[in-house]
């Protein structure tokens, strides 16, 4: 226990400190005004986010249960950043909510869970992190307390995620049974591809697939996204997903290196299904959150495509894409948050004629959607290109063709919304909405990201250098 402890665990410690501080606030009862609390929380998150940059350190703690590298540190920074943005965009919603502090405690706990998951050195820590990241999340999903949809979503979320983690646990137990260890360092040599290990790979893989909402394990996603409060939806679709992707990257190949062919084939199947089915469902959605749920499912397919390349290129591309994805998705969610909060409208049809009344937000939404669709000059184009490039590096062209064609389908549904906003007539368009300064800051950051990330190769190079 030395200085290392504080340096290596600074993100976790920071989050914990914030949690305890907020608990203190709750108990102390000194500050009761929501706005103040929100401001404090945002500032704290900002500080925590900054903290991530100060030092880079590789190392492990607790006998290898906790380890961190530059890459993991960077991933945590990304998650911190996303959480900060979501916190900013949730301002309008939370300022009238009764349980602001609880919201932050739960939110930050899940974030903490993700951090532990990222830094986990064995399956135990991983599992704990996973549960820490999902159980409070279910409570968060239920945070629109008076909305029945919110509860329904929460039930669906907690039951299905419990089911999925059970299945995954079963796989982990098998793995333990065949290897005798749970430590990531020791496992790769012991995993040889025996038949029980195949089973456990399948169980673990499906567990991940569930969390990543890859088809056919995705079915909970849309319902949960639709029912959750906007802030939680964006958190689920961005942060939670990003964290799972990061973990998936650091577990899949390092651990199951000897079973590469097998998991590649699994991925192949999953990617094809995920991209296609995600798209097919996205086409028909009417609720904009639900729509983004399916779109994010399809996006996950692309991320998996990058991961499937099993190379530095693929990992870089995936992480890069996730950053872009955070910008674009949060951009879109910011608009949805404003609209939903001020008018309560969440249907795509409600967005008809949106551009007439809200030029700026219309463009924000359009740019975000273009970025999600992978259309230049937005950063999404670069992200998708790199993913597909990475996917192609394995020489599996069928996969690339399917992915490329699905990009066309996805363009259709993104354009459908753009069309609704820009072209369609509406007798009662959404009135002019602005949102608070905090949301606007979030929007501006996202838009800057969407436009600039692609052109500046710095980010990509930096991620690449972390490998």
């Amino acid at each position, binding site marked *: 226990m030395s200085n290392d402890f504080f340096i290596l665990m600074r993100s976790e410690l920071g989050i914990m400190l914030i949690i305890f501080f907020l608990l203190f606030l709750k108990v102390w009862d000194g500050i009761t005004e929501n706005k103040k609390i929100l401001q404090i929380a945002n500032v704290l998150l900002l500080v925590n986010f900054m903290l991530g940059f100060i030092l880079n350190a590789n190392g492990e703690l607790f006998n290898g249960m906790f380890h961190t590298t530059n890459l993991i540190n960077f991933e945590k920074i990304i998650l911190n950043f996303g959480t900060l943005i979501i916190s900013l965009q949730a301002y309008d919603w939370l300022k009238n909510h009764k349980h602001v502090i609880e919201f932050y405690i739960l939110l930050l706990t899940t974030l903490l869970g993700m951090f532990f998951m990222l830094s986990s050195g*064995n*399956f*135990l820590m991983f*599992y*704990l992190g996973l*549960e820490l990241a999902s*159980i*409070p999340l*279910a*409570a968060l999903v*239920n945070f629109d*307390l008076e909305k*029945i*949809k919110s*509860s*329904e*979503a*929460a*039930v*669906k979320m*907690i*039951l299905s995620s*419990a*089911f999925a983690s*059970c299945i995954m*646990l*079963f796989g982990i*137990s*098998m793995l*333990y*049974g065949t290897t*005798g*260890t*749970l430590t990531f360092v020791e496992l790769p040599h012991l995993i040889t591809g025996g038949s029980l290990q195949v089973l456990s790979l399948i169980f673990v893989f499906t567990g991940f697939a569930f969390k990543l909402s890859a088809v056919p394990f995705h079915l909970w996603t*849309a*319902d949960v996204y*639709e*029912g959750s409060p906007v802030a939680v939806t964006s958190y689920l679709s961005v942060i939670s997903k990003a964290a799972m992707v990061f973990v998936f990257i650091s577990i899949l190949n390092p651990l199951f290196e000897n079973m590469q062919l097998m998991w590649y084939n699994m991925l192949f199947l999953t990617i094809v299904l995920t991209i296609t089915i995600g798209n097919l469902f996205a086409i*028909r959605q009417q609720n904009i959150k*639900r729509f983004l749920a399916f779109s994010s499912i399809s996006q996950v397919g692309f991320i998996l495509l990058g991961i499937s390349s099993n190379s530095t290129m693929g990992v870089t591309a995936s992480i890069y894409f996730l950053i872009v994805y955070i910008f674009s998705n949060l951009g879109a969610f910011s608009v949805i948050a404003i609209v939903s909060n001020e008018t309560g409208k969440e249907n795509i049809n409600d967005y008809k004629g949106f551009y007439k009344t809200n030029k700026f937000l219309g463009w924000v939404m359009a740019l975000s959607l273009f970025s999600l669709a992978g259309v230049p000059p937005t950063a999404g184009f670069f992200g998708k290109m790199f993913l597909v490039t990475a996917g192609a590096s394995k020489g599996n062209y069928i996969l690339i063709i399917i992915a490329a064609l699905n990009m066309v389908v996805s363009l259709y549904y993104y354009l459908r919304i753009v069309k609704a906003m820009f072209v369609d007539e509406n007798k009662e368009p959404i009135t002019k909405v602005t949102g608070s300064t905090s949301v606007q800051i979030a929007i501006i950051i996202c838009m800057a990201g969407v436009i600039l990330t692609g052109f500046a190769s710095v980010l990509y190079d930096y991620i690449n250098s972390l490998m």
Partner: protein
Amino acid sequence: MNEIGLTHILFVSTILFFIGVYGFLTRRNMISMLMSIELILNSVNINFVAFNKYLYADKLDGTFFTIFIITIAAAEASVAIAIIIHLYRNLKSVDIDDADMMKF
């Protein structure tokens, strides 16, 4: 104890696992589903303990895993029950098939 080895225990746990799965897939009462989850978790626990006991007794990894799983199961159950009850207040039903407002 010679005859009853690890494998038998594993059989029991595996069957229990799938009983749990069956329950999860068929019981329409949400609380029942939660109970099925507990069954599954218990089967996993048996696995971990048995492996630890019979194969890898040099460390206590499996045992600890079990302890944590039990803890988490408790936490999960509490949150799940809270949510179910909350939903019940609005929906006046604990039938999972009634919770299908959001679909397609």
